[in-house]
């Protein structure tokens, strides 16, 4: 039994005393960093499955009620959707640059890029709010008051099917927006710590992980955009 144990080399323990960011139960900074990033990726796949449930539902109903989905999609604002896509992609760039600045240890640049990222995030949410307001005031919210008018301001024959589309629209973009809100909060939090000089080449795991999260939220939108806004550009009924 005694064979089981042996002293670890002293170097590992030495590292432990050197880096204040190393938590007690890790042997080395590298192990800690690897574990955190892997944890983040595992978390992201749970997010994939979380949105996956809605994507599965979306796919099934789109298959069942294609005309209704086309009709619903025609009531999306193509330009707001496209602009929001651009905004999010820009924010991903600045986020990536923020992580890079952390890796290279440029404190001001980290803060700067993070602030721009927050700005883009808020812009996205603002545009989303404008869109929501438009849909809300036109009674395009599922429920008893749901209404869908065609181009002649008559109730659309596809109303009931398009209502399912709108259920998905609100649920999917709503959960996406919720993730954005959380993302903005997280970015603000690391921006604050970055401003305090917490991150640099020696330690930037939180920046990297929040970056991963931010990009993931962007990824979801990359799919939501064509699935919700770009189904078809013409009425099924011609």
């Amino acid at each position, binding site marked *: 039994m005694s064979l089981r144990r042996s002293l670890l080399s002293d170097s590992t323990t030495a590292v432990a005393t050197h880096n204040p960011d190393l938590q007690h139960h890790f042997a080395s900074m590298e192990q800690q960093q690897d574990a955190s990033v892997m944890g983040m990726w595992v978390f992201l796949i749970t997010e994939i499955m979380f949105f996956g449930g809605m994507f599965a539902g979306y796919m099934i109903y789109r298959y069942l009620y294609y*005309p209704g989905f086309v009709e619903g999609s025609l009531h999306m604002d193509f330009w707001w959707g496209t602009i929001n896509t651009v905004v999010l992609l820009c924010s991903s760039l600045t986020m990536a640059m923020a992580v890079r600045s952390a890796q290279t240890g440029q404190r001001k640049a980290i803060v700067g890029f993070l602030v721009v990222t927050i700005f883009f995030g808020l812009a996205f949410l603002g545009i989303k709010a404008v869109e929501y307001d438009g849909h809300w005031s036109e009674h395009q919210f599922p429920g008893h008051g749901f209404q869908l008018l*065609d181009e002649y301001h008559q109730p659309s*024959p*596809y109303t009931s*099917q398009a209502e399912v589309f709108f259920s998905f629209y609100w649920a999917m973009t709503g959960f996406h927006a919720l993730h954005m809100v959380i993302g903005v909060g997280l970015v603000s939090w690391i921006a604050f710590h970055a401003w305090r000089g917490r991150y640099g080449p020696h330690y930037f795991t939180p920046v990297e992980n929040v970056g991963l999260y931010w990009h993931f939220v962007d990824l979801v939108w990359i799919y939501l955009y064509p699935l919700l806004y770009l189904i078809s550009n013409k009425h099924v*009924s011609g």
Partner: protein
Amino acid sequence: MFENLPLWPARASTTAGSVDALYVFLVTISSIMCLAIFTMIVVFALRFRRRAGHRAEQIEGSNALELTWTFIPFGIFLFIFVWAAYIYFQERTPPKDSTEVYTVAKQWMWKFQHIEGHREINELHVPVGRNVRMIMTSQDVIHSFYVPAFRIKQDVLPGKYTIAWFHATKPGTYHLFCAEYCGTMHSGMIGEVVVMEPAQYQQWLSGGAATGSLANTGQGLFASLGCSTCHRFDTQGRGPNLTGLFSKQVLLEDGRTVSADENYIRESILSPAAKVVSGFKPIMPTFQGIISEEQLNALVAYVKSLNAPAAGAAGTPNLKPPTSQTPVTNQ
């Protein structure tokens, strides 16, 4: 031979026998497997119990053994699968020549509409020796039509039809249960299936206060709801001619082809824009919330009756878009 043992319910349908046979086979196989494993455990535990001076003999494992007990059970499983799938296939495919009973389930009762026009609540009379096809839907939540003596069960869904069928073989009165939990009085949503000799059944049919066949009721509705103004029996209607429609393939406006089964007719009444027939416009108003499930059943029965040679006014089914159709705008 086990008729008197209370280990299973009465065996009163053609399906019951085949399900029981599979059950007995599975009980046998499982008992053998259990017995083998339990015997091994007991024998090993006693034979190799701890004794002074004896040490365990370390054994790595055996690939041959592992493969054996991987593939032999797998083979048995496949056999069970095929057998069971065969029975299931029969349970799910009603024969063509069936008498039909429309069923509406609601919290917490069963409503039956016979094709002949008879209506029943929580009691279903059927003849022995005939295929009966249940066309079922629910007014509220999910229910399940379960007759243990027939070994059949089918969930009854709101918003669409599900189909079950049976062929009763033994006269008697049997339990009808709702098997899908449906709210407070779920356990009160029970009834009886009365299987009768054909003669008695005829007597029962003639005794009831039927107000004409279900299709007749449907025909009345078809006129009073104004369906007949557009769905005419010629090629001039603004809606498709429904003669001979049932069970045909229908070409839709968006290029898909669907089979005109009960669910298609139902959907077309409640959600007309969902599947628009090629050459027509989505101008029909929805009847969702306007007609009851029973009326809907009557309409479906009527449309189906248009297939019968006598009922249709126009002779041949005409599903192709009329050539000289009046142009109708979306309005």
